């Protein structure tokens, strides 16, 4: 049995709860660059691929239970209002209706800061007011129309600028500043700016982006006696279980959360939402299972977004490019509520990406009467990179330096926040090398014969605090009598292919072919605790736990084999389903054959994720090069190619990593060129909460994306050497595109996305006044 160490917990800011942490040693050596791995490193197709392409994979929206009802939520039409009265009588009498809930007939359940589940004050268009469960979705919608609500409309704000005015209407009683502003400072930024030979200053704005995962939010709730089962489209089955149990005042073990397949979450599904509890309450009242799926409109109003930001940035540098100061003042809109899942550290990359002795960041979140922000694939960093990486490009041009050379000159060898070395300090340098070589950076861009079209190239770098993985996280393994293994975790595959990458780690350590592994996840009733799948953490969190469990089982197997073969354990190893004898190939024996000798006994073990190294910092890094063409008459931007390189440690499954890279860059292209939530500031209404006018990229918008793999194991980070890749590829895309647009036409776009409207307005402004600056 594993030895447990109980230590006082180093609590992070704002965190409450547990005071101690359990530290478990994995007791294994990390795979390093010389390890000869058979299964890890291969592009196995997804284990669930057949299920998905045959349509048999069941998503949360596919759940059909006997007697299942369908729910709809009544949402506020006002951005800010007090509810004087709600009358649900007519809705309750509407045909096919089995339950109607609102503030009057459910317990007060605390939600979002000081508010409750169905609050008497609504703070955004889309805030939840009541809900109906009926025999069909249409009947539920019919009943919604019959709910009578008496509103007292209140003044509201929808933009950061409005929210910060001294006389602004207050979103919450405490005012419009959301939480404590954060300030970070090292060195003396003023002196740093003073001693600089060149200072660049810019005001940047990033848009509010909407997640728009293929599968929208939703769940199905079903009670049996006092036990609740939720099929939820979530990134965090255990967090949903804990939170729903807490909200409903139930013991955790009476809540089961299941999520086998998911059509993406991108951060928006990393927290439980009101619909989880609403479905449970409706189901309880109706005595039947209830499915509550959010339509695209509801999701895009009320279930998360990437916070819009304003960033005032100053960079100072010596003539040779050495940075002397980085100063950033950041304002971001939290929307109407802090959900607890924002994780939007916009300041972070200013503090860490480049070596600089003098840095100051100030970050203030403000409330607005709009949908609440929640993490969106590399939250904070995507927004910050748009500003910092354009400012670095401006600085390079001001200094007449190559943008990559400028970045190399300011290479951060250590984590400047804690003065600790990185686990793979060359990660970013390797990314620079790989991406520039593959792209052909520095080679002249051939301009098209048609002078109306201008080509340009752009570069951007990034770091990311995620991808590290962390404890706790557990795995169970049972080696069966026939030599196959059941591998059980409580993590979830949010569409990334986590099943496959994790099963490869287990197969490798067990010495079994991948086909001999049955991999289970996504069910709180059958697997051990696993944390939320966010921060690109799943592979790096659960992989080492699986290795630990597998190593334990393997050790047991070798003990059995040692007895069976009458050979010392020291001469035995397992590979590709066979126990091998060192120096005697003839005596190799199938794992199943060994197991048959002890049947029906099986070999079992558990593994736990050990802590990350205390004396080193784990980071993921990367860099991207873009080539594009701008049509200077029509404002059309055509991205021609993107090459990207990322240090994600060891690549467990190249095909899966490539698919994360392509997906991330694609979202980056959307963030750069077309994705922007539009809110009418006089009405407080999102005008494009749909896929018609919120323009995600189509296949025709996405260029050739080439992944220049780095693939150097980060063996100091964890025992598998693998780090996460889910979020990083999106971070540098938008600034690389904006830098390439500048290269093409000499106009700096400090506000995104770079739509035709912005590009043509800027081109027209230059025509009139010769300025190379785009208005926001």
């Amino acid at each position, binding site marked *: 049995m594993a030895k447990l160490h109980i230590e006082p917990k180093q609590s992070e800011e704002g965190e409450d709860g547990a005071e101690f942490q359990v530290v478990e040693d994995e007791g294994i050596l990390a795979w390093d660059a010389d390890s000869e791995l058979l299964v890890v490193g291969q592009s196995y197709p997804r284990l669930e691929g057949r299920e998905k392409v045959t349509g048999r994979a069941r998503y949360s929206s596919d759940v059909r239970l006997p007697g299942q009802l369908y729910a709809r939520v009544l949402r506020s*039409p006002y951005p800010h209002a007090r509810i004087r009265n709600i009358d649900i009588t007519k809705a309750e009498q509407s045909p096919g209706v089995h339950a109607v809930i609102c503030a009057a007939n459910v317990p007060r359940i605390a939600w979002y800061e000081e508010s409750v589940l169905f609050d008497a004050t609504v703070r955004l*268009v889309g805030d939840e007011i009541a809900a109906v469960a009926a025999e069909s979705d*249409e009947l539920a*919608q*019919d009943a919604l129309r019959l709910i009578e609500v008496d509103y007292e409309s209140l003044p509201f704000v929808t933009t950061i600028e409005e929210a910060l005015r001294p006389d602004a209407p207050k979103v919450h009683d405490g005012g419009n500043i959301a939480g404590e502003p954060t300030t970070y400072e090292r060195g003396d930024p003023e002196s740093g700016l003073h001693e600089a030979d060149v200072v660049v200053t810019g005001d940047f704005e990033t848009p509010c982006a909407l997640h728009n995962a293929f599968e929208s939010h939703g769940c199905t709730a079903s009670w049996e006696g006092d036990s609740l089962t939720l099929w939820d489209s979530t990134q965090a089955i255990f967090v949903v279980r804990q939170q729903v149990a807490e909200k409903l005042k139930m013991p955790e073990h009476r809540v089961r959360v299941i999520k086998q397949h998911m059509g993406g979450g991108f951060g928006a599904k990393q927290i439980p939402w009101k619909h989880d509890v609403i479905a449970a309450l409706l189901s309880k009242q109706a005595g039947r299972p209830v499915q509550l799926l959010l339509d695209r409109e509801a999701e895009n109003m009320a279930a998360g977004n990437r916070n819009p930001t304003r960033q005032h940035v100053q960079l100072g540098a010596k003539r040779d490019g050495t940075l002397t100061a980085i100063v950033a003042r950041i304002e971001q809109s939290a929307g109407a509520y802090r959900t607890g899942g924002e994780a939007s550290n916009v300041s972070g990359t200013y503090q860490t990406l480049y070596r600089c002795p003098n840095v100051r960041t100030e970050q203030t979140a403000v409330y607005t009467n709009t949908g609440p922000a929640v993490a969106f694939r590399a939250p904070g960093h995507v927004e910050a990179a748009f500003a910092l990486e354009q400012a670095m490009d401006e600085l390079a041009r001001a200094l007449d330096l190559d943008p990559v050379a400028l970045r190399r000159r300011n290479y951060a060898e250590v984590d400047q926040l804690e003065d600790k070395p990185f686990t793979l300090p060359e990660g970013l340098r390797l990314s620079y090398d790989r991406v520039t070589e593959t792209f052909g950076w520095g080679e002249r861009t051939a301009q098209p014969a048609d002078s109306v079209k201008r080509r340009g190239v752009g570069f951007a770098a990034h770091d990311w605090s995620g991808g590290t993985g962390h404890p706790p996280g557990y795995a169970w393994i049972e080696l069966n009598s026939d030599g196959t293994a059941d591998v059980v975790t409580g993590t979830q595959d949010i569409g990334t292919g986590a099943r496959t990458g994790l099963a490869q780690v287990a197969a490798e350590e067990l010495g079994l072919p991948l086909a001999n592994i049955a991999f289970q996840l996504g069910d709180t009733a059958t697997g051990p605790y696993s944390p939320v799948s966010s921060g690109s953490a799943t592979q790096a969190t659960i992989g080492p736990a699986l290795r630990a469990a597998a190593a334990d089982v393997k050790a047991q197997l070798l003990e059995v084999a040692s007895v069976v073969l009458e050979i010392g354990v020291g001469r035995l190893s397992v590979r590709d389903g066979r126990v091998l004898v060192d120096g005697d190939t003839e005596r190799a024996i199938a794992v199943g054959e060994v197991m048959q000798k002890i049947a029906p006994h099986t070999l079992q073990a558990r593994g736990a994720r050990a802590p990350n190294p205390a004396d080193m910092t784990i980071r993921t890094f990367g860099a991207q090069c873009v080539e594009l063409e701008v049509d200077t*008459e*029509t*404002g*059309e931007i*055509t991205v021609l190619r993107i090459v990207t390189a990322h240090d994600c440690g060891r690549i467990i499954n190249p095909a899966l990593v490539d698919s994360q890279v392509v997906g991330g860059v694609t979202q980056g292209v959307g963030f750069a*060129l*077309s994705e922007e939530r*539009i809110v*009418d500031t*006089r*009405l407080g*209404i999102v*005008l*494009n909460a749909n896929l*018609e*006018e919120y*323009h995600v*990229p*189509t296949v*025709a*918008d996405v260029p050739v994306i080439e992944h220049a793999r780095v693939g150097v194991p980060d063996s100091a980070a964890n025992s598998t050497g693998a780090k996460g890749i889910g979020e990083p590829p999106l971070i540098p895309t938008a600034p690389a595109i904006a830098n390439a647009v500048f290269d093409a036409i000499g106009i700096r776009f400090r506000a995104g996305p770079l*739509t*035709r*409207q912005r590009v*043509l*307005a800027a*081109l*027209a402004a230059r025509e009139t006044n010769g300025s190379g600056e785009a208005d926001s």
Partner: protein
Amino acid sequence: MKPFDFARPDTIAAAVALLDGRDASRPNRSALLAGGTDLLTLMKADLYAPELLIDIKRLAELDNRIEETAEGLTIGALVTLSQLEDDPRIQSLVPALAEAAALAATPQLRHMATIGGNLLQRPRCWYFRKPGIHCWLKGGDDCPARQGENQLHALFDVSPCVAVHPSDPATALLALAASVRLRGAAGERELPLAAFFAPPTDERRQETVIGNDELIVSIQIPAAAPGTRSTYLKAMNRKVWAFALAGVAAAIHMDGNRIAQARLALGGVAPVPWRAESAEQVLTGAEPSPEIIARAAESALASAEPLAHNGYKIPLAKALVRRALTRLTAPAFPGA
């Protein structure tokens, strides 16, 4: 969506009888269902709640064919956009229409959407489409887009409503001098497209003059002089699957090295497909040159009155006009 009755009549006369638009107090009583690509979105958003849906998709009497005669082309109301896109006669005789159809929506939508429904579709204005906003076009007092988020809206101020007409084929058909044949309780009539589309007024808050009791039977495109060239260009906020920020359809007949006849229509700039007659006058009789083409483009947008956020559409539309004309007047025009 509210409950409705459903009918599938066997004849046009029966369909017209069901339309029953003479009861002016109940203008929403019935609606025609063909492809349904616009109607169903309107109904699902509660913007339109007809009591009766009249399914004409399989109405044998209503044509889903394209016919070529000496007078020109007749396109049945039920012809889909993908038929227009793929038909060799459309491609060779009126390429502007094939190009416009191909640039509309997505392949899935084009397989469903009919040309009749395409001409009758309602604007995509996000204020109009939002159920909670009671805009002028839906019977309200004013148009919220005028002072609001009007980046997608009209450059030509010809109606209390500043939404733009969303159809790509309509712009092409206007440049091709097409007309629509309507059948109603009082019989059949044929209207040139320029008369069929009319900016909404206080009395008629819709984009066409079609009567409540009428349906589109077919679209006629008159035979153009041999050698007439046409094209359609469209600018979107992404490469495909978006409504036009601006669209331009042009049809040119050259007589030697002079432009004998020119028709030019713009989309995405007005509540109706917008004919640029002054630009046509600049071109007619002229020898094509970059200067003449630039003058035509200037002329086409001369009376534009941009709103706060849509001024970018002026240089955009001008560029598309220049490109369309340059392409059509090039000596080496494909097929010339």
